[in-house]
């Protein structure tokens, strides 16, 4: 497998949304929601983007309270968290004002039942004006839709979708070290719509080619190898 970050249609749409978020008009809010089924590469894509663009990646936890979240954000912004919650909030805002960075909040579904935490994030966004990206699972848009004040601030909503046939072809060209025939790609697409599963197929195809000395892998080679 080649060691590069593969660009699928989901990644392209994510990058386009982040580009628009970064270049938005000052009067517009700067929040985005990215959601989709597990295994489609949301977290990986967001992490890749954060690493390349200096974003701050926060992974929320199920038991997270508002204070815990603020502590995590302040620590990730490079400051030592203060004791009082009000000071934590102030630290957070001042850090973001002095050096604006995009905040990426992963697993935002966990926070969907705690209005106080979500509203705190909204407060940070309103005061500091920093772009904020929420990553959530399949029903994240419906869960967050209950908070109208928050949902209205999402200027970009990106849904990660199952890989299309073209995506599988692109991925094979970008990642797979062995050539796959059209019927092999059809088979992979029919069986696996998710990134992780497609990678497993590519790995199997590479092993088959290496062991049997094949230059091209067809569907007949892959059949029964799932």
């Amino acid at each position, binding site marked *: 497998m080649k060691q*590069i970050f593969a660009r699928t249609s989901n990644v392209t749409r994510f990058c386009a949304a982040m580009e628009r978020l970064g270049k938005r008009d000052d009067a517009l809010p700067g929040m985005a929601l990215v959601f989709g089924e597990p295994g489609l590469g949301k977290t*990986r894509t967001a992490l890749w983007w954060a*690493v390349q*663009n200096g974003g701050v990646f926060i992974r929320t936890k199920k038991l997270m309270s508002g204070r815990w979240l603020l502590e995590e954000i302040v620590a990730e912004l490079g400051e030592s968290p203060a004791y009082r919650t009000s000071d934590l909030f102030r630290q957070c805002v001042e850090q973001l*004002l002095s050096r604006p960075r995009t905040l990426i909040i992963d697993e935002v579904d966990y926070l969907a039942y705690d209005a106080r935490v979500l509203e705190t994030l909204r407060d940070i966004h309103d005061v500091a004006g920093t772009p904020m990206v929420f990553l959530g699972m399949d029903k994240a848009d419906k869960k967050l839709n209950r908070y109208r004040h928050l949902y209205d601030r999402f200027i970009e909503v990106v849904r990660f979708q199952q890989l299309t046939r073209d995506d599988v072809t692109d991925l094979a060209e970008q990642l797979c070290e062995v050539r796959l025939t059209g019927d092999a790609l059809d088979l992979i697409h029919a069986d696996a719509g998710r990134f992780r599963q497609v990678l497993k197929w590519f790995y199997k195809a590479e092993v088959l080619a290496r062991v049997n000395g094949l230059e091209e892998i067809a569907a007949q080679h892959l059949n029964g190898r799932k």
Partner: protein
Amino acid sequence: MLKAVMQACLSFGERFFSLTQIAEATGMERQAVRHRLWKLETAGLISRFRSQEIPAGRGRPAKEIYYRATSLLAKRFHEGNERPASKMNGWDRMWQAVRVLRRFTRNDLAQICGQKGENVRCFTTAYRQAGYLRCLGRPGTRGVMWILAKDPGPKRPPYKGETHVD
């Protein structure tokens, strides 16, 4: 808000200005302005000229402080307006990715951080020896998992042999 205070301070040029003048110019509360001015003063961007108490009809007398901007203020203000470029090097990026992933393979790091396999190998080896990473298997084996064993924070820690990390 700090930007607004900095802008108001700069509008006075080389002249002295008072806390009240900045509060009027920015439309912010006096206490908030005083806090920002204190921050600018401690950072050496403005210098305090003098302070005096203004007698009030009742309660504690208000304090009027006079400042003057230093040449650093304009420089810092214009620096701050530009979007800061990412000064992270490859190892900083890998450290950030490791802290998010927690469990990873060398391939994951190479793909996400856009680093060459050799650089990833040096990184994992250096931090394994420093005790920050642990390998769940024989290091060097294909597809072996690595975990973050010690997380000292977002700033990449120095490893043995590295004298300065910034």
